[in-house]
């Protein structure tokens, strides 16, 4: 699991590692006992079977100890969860809408919205017998035409919904995964501490092209974000027109496939 680039992703990573090491420790003890008894207490070494079949003290102990360990695990997990759920007072809100099979990003505060689809190169290479070696495609299946752009250090609230079936918006480096459900508006938040490009994928089976709707989040410096917003507004009319055309083709194509 990546440590990620936000406070919450780091906390999630720590929880993961904490539980993992508990499991390793318990595993070592339990497996060591099992292996010891398998080696020592075998008939081929002439070991005679004892006939005991219960020991109340022991049973109480090995019920109580796991309860304690679970408590130790549960407390930080609950704390992190409470923090994860607190999505008030964002600096920026984006609305993510899932479609079969691409994402739509909308910045209600800035009047910017666009679709984000698998980039053309991956889209060619993914076809059966395309003749293109996936290893020759940079970020094969993890590249989009228009990434989500957000400023570094800002608390970004992501509102997630869907227009058709259930999708899930997943960015491992930000420790975010949330279902996009038609008729529901789910909220998550993140604050990316480092600029960079973070990639993820749709995580909920959403039909034929479920594997082909990646998520790309570009975290940029606040100034660069402001510049990007300006540029988007300038080219908005052209962008909208091309988006609509693309949407129309895709919908038509989908209906061909579905046969209606």
């Amino acid at each position, binding site marked *: 699991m990546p440590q990620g680039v936000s406070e919450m992703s780091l906390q999630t990573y720590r929880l993961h590692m904490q539980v*993992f090491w508990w499991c390793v420790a318990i595993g070592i003890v339990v497996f060591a006992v099992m292996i010891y*008894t398998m080696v020592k207490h075998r008939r081929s070494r002439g070991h005679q079977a004892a006939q005991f*079949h219960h020991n109340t003290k022991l*049973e109480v102990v090995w019920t109580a100890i796991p309860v304690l360990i679970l408590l130790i695990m*549960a407390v930080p997990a609950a704390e992190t969860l409470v923090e994860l759920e607190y999505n008030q007072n964002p600096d920026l809100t984006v609305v993510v809408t899932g479609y079969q099979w691409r994402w739509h990003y909308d910045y209600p505060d800035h009047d910017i919205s666009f679709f984000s689809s698998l980039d053309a190169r991956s889209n060619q290479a993914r076809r059966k017998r395309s003749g293109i070696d996936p290893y020759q495609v940079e970020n094969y299946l993890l590249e989009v035409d228009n990434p989500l752009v957000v400023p570094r250090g800002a608390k970004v609230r992501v509102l997630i919904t869907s227009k058709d079936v259930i999708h899930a918006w997943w960015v491992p480096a930000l*420790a975010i995964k949330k279902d996009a459900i038609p008729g529901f508006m789910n909220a998550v938040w993140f604050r990316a501490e480092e600029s960079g490009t973070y990639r993820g994928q749709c995580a909920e089976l959403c039909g034929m092209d479920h594997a082909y709707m990646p998520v790309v989040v570009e975290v940029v410096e606040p100034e660069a974000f402001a510049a990007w917003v300006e540029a988007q507004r300038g080219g908005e009319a052209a962008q909208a027109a091309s988006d609509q055309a693309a949407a129309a083709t895709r919908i038509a194509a989908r209906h061909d496939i579905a046969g209606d």
Partner: protein
Amino acid sequence: MTTAVADAHLAHDAEHHGPPAGWRRWVFSTNHKDIGTMYLVFSLLMFMIGGALALAIRAELFSPGLQFVEPHFFNQLTTMHALIMIFGAVMPAMVGLANWMIPLQIGAPDMALPRMNNLSFWILPFAFTLLLSTFFMDGGAAAGGWTMYPPLALQAGDSFPFTIFSIHLMGMSSIMGAINVIVTILNMRAPDMTLLKMPMFVWGWLITAYLLLAVMPVLAGAVTMLLTDQFFGTSFFLAAGGGDPVMYQHIFWFFGHPEVYIMILPAFGIVSEVIPTFARKPLFGHESMVYAMSCIAFLSFVVWAHHMFTVGMPLTGQLFFMFATMLIAVPTGVKVFNWTATMWRGSMTFETPMLFAIAFLFLFTIGGFSGLMVAIVPADIQYHDSYFVVAHFHYVLVPGSVFAIFAAVYYWLPKWTGTMYNEKLGKLHFWLSTIFVNILFFPMHFLGLAGMPRRIPDYSTQFADFNAVATIGAIGFGLSQLIFIWVVIQAIRGKGERASAKVWDNPKGLEWTVPSPAPHHTFETPPKVSTEVAFQ
């Protein structure tokens, strides 16, 4: 009195006994042993078909890029693989074992409701013929995942109503099987076999049967609502009509989580039978095993939403389901410790059934660890719908349930056929299966943690190496099962040593008091549960 009974018994025997010949024996059978055999053979057939689908999936995933199948067909493969393995392979195998062993273990002449027994088996071939035929329908088989989440599940071709109907049929079969098990266990035990004296396999099944009875109707209800949403204009799950797609998930997992324990509790029972026999020591904590299983069964009803931590539940809901889920680790831990204590200071030998039981112990525990990890909500949000989850549930299902079934088959096969299986080949089957099952499923943990979603036919190049390893494991595991089939066929054909009535070195239980092979009719007069065979 005993003589009189015995005489009457003999006279009765002479008149009409032994099975009818030919196909009538099987089609009209009301005999628990024959029906058990049919269940087991059917389950093996489905295991092969489901396995073939799995191999097709792994072949496609061997390297990045699409090589063999189109994405839509890939989704059909994953969906059908799950449905066939769960409802066609694991569950019928457990019912087959229940049919064979419950009457033998409690000293009953047969199942309580033999004609219903016949019906509940014979529904299955029709249900699965129907299900498999959907591959050839317009639009292909169901491709929305075995969980059939709407709205996606409703975007199906002609196969949709047929898939639902086949699930209804499987549900009816399971419910009838469950009723039969409960009625048999509660009414037909040998006179002095109290509930707590029952063998652990019978206990596991008694609890399982109640779970089945409770949740199969829930599944039937959920899929029926899908059906009416699709064809009768209802909007149970359609947001556009005021419905709620998440409600389906709640209903489905209210069935789905107990279903997980339906597949594992009989396995717990099997392992609790096998380990004492080969450790030559009574099961440690017989009663606490029963309480642990009951606890697990109870908890299974209050943890369903841990399958849905990403749907957007209220914080309190998430906390409740996290804590409840973590609690399951306690009774599960008790069971693992009890099995270990059973082996402790025993006099162990390692025949094939014991080997499979020990592999179960180790590998199911690994599945338990990843189960604990997925209970931790913030971490689960990252594991959810990734290959980590695929690794987790395959660890509890394959080296869990399936290995327990292997252990059971090797353990009781000499009793069923009267012939010892080939121990060398059995051990070979064990070692190959155990090695390959780890090569197959362990890398999936890494894939999930690296960010690979499940149910995708193609992936980015950084996931390539572990996927290649997993596919090699899959091919090895698949081929190893051919050894199993060969060993079973040889034993059925009587190629091998004759088995004694006890088969093993002084095992406990009534099933070892009847000859091997077990005669067509057993325990027509109730046996006495002597201290010799009792568990406590």
